[in-house]
């Protein structure tokens, strides 16, 4: 009984009042109720702005952002935020992770910004070291997926922020089935299995250890050809000043197929190590 990842993910707080992704340097102090109501009243509005916006990206990659009005951009960001949070959930699935929750509350906000900037640098360097992508000009007829930065606060068991984290993500919602990806299913352990193992470990006094994979997704290879925009703030240009895009070599957070790719990678390693897969709960 493999449970689809979304099913077991704990509900995470997507903060309503934060654009988060691109214009985090000037944030509005008041909650942005206007947009929320707007979306709630008329779902077709989301279609009209949010998803059309997505089409825009695909058609006019270069003009993205400039063409949309402030309101549209806002709504787009909201969609981004929701989707991105979802992608992030898939990756961490930890209730301790709360996106941007008390972003305005900290008095030492400049310190937080500084931390974020450092985290961003570190993330960029990690990707460079990892060889996550190669810079190429976008081939004719190929599409480019937009990308962004996502900020999260890592909290400890008491809910205190221990680390500010930034991730470079691909906006996977603009991927098209059959073109950019095929299968996205990845099994995870069901909660029953986890409890069963804990109970047995307690009864029989077994060893019980915990390990965590650091930045799991970019450690798995990507088979499909996927192009994403370069990270904002770290753009590079070709020798003649032409625009370059990233052709992904490894899975990136946010892509639809990343979870599956990661599972395939680690599952393959487990099998190589001599482990068997449970037939009842293949995780």
């Amino acid at each position, binding site marked *: 009984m493999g449970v689809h990842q979304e099913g077991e993910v704990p509900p995470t707080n997507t903060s309503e009042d934060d654009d988060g992704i691109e214009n985090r340097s000037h944030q509005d102090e008041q909650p942005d109720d206007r947009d929320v109501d707007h979306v709630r009243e008329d779902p077709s509005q989301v279609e009209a702005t949010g998803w059309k916006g997505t089409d825009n990206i695909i058609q006019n990659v270069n003009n993205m952002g400039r063409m949309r009005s402030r309101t549209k951009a806002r709504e787009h960001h909201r969609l981004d935020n929701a989707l991105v949070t979802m992608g992030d959930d898939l990756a961490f699935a930890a209730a301790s992770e709360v996106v941007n929750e008390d972003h305005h509350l900290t008095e030492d906000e400049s310190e937080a910004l500084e931390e974020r900037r450092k985290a961003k640098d570190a993330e960029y360097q990690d990707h460079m070291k990892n060889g996550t992508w190669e810079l190429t000009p976008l081939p004719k007829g190929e599409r480019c997926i937009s990308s962004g930065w996502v900020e999260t606060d890592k909290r400890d068991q008491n809910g205190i922020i221990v680390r500010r984290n930034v991730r470079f993500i691909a906006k996977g919602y603009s991927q098209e089935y059959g073109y950019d990806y095929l299968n996205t299913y990845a099994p995870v352990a069901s909660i029953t299995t986890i409890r069963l193992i804990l109970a047995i470990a307690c009864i029989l006094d077994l060893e*019980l250890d915990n*390990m965590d*994979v650091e930045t799991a997704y970019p450690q798995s290879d990507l088979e499909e050809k996927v192009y994403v925009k370069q990270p904002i703030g770290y753009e590079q240009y070709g020798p003649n000043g032409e625009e370059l895009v990233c052709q992904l070599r490894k899975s990136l957070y946010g892509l639809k197929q990343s979870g599956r790719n990661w599972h395939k990678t680690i599952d393959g390693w487990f099998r190589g190590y001599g482990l068997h897969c449970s037939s009842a709960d293949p995780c």
Partner: protein
Amino acid sequence: MKFGSSGEVLVIVLYVDDLIITGNSRDMVNDFKLAIPRKFSMKDLRELDWILGMAIKRNREKRIMEISQTAYIDTVLAKFGMADCAPVLKPMEGILTKMNREDIKPDSEYMKLVGSLLYAALVTRPDIAFAVQSLGKHLHLASTEHWIAAKRVLRYLKGTREIGLKYTGTTTGSFTLVGYADADYAGDKDNRRSTSGYAFTLRHGDNINTVDWRAKQQDVVVLSSAESELISACSATQTTIYIRQVLVDLGFKQDGPTMIMEDNQACIAMSNNPITHKRTKHIDVRYHFVREKNKSK
């Protein structure tokens, strides 16, 4: 999982990027922990004390393990502005009914609250499982009454934020899986459906360790309490098969049949004895599943 030459076993539970490594041999666990960083960049968190929002406290000498979601519950309370609410002793009071009023619109805040509660109910809190499932039936049309009921669950959690599951064991003997099934006959006042409930425990000597539970509204209307109990016995039987299979995979095959405790005599009789009676002849075929599995024990 991996089996060693002399009865050692290593079990890895993978939850995306979280690994629970368990086994009866320290060497095998250490070998694994040395091998995996060669391929992936890993962080060793040593003893398992925190996974998926559950805090795990363990006392190995006394064989006690306590699992709770205190931090998660505090986060939920703060998120819905109930951090300083007055605690109550019961998670629900009375029965929620549907409100057929025109002005009620889907309320996403209510959905978020129920979703947050549902995670607690699924992971460590069987005590609120029924309350949360009855809130969940009204997700699309939530009125003030439902909000009050949902906040009542929060207030109950406020008073009981530290409780969770407790696993205990002794040094000798093996464990057996025991199930309990019950039903709330026609408890829903709107559509008169019944609610199934079951719980599974691993019994080890006098220690009872709850490993799985569920409260779920049945998907058909039934005509007698025996019938509703039969349906919940059916759900329990399905889960039994699953848990037994997981146990087989882990190398703890259950030797005898698994007992499911059932308090309805008519239901027990029906699942033992295939006699069609004029009051039971309408019962859907699939609930005779229990009878078939009962025979094959």
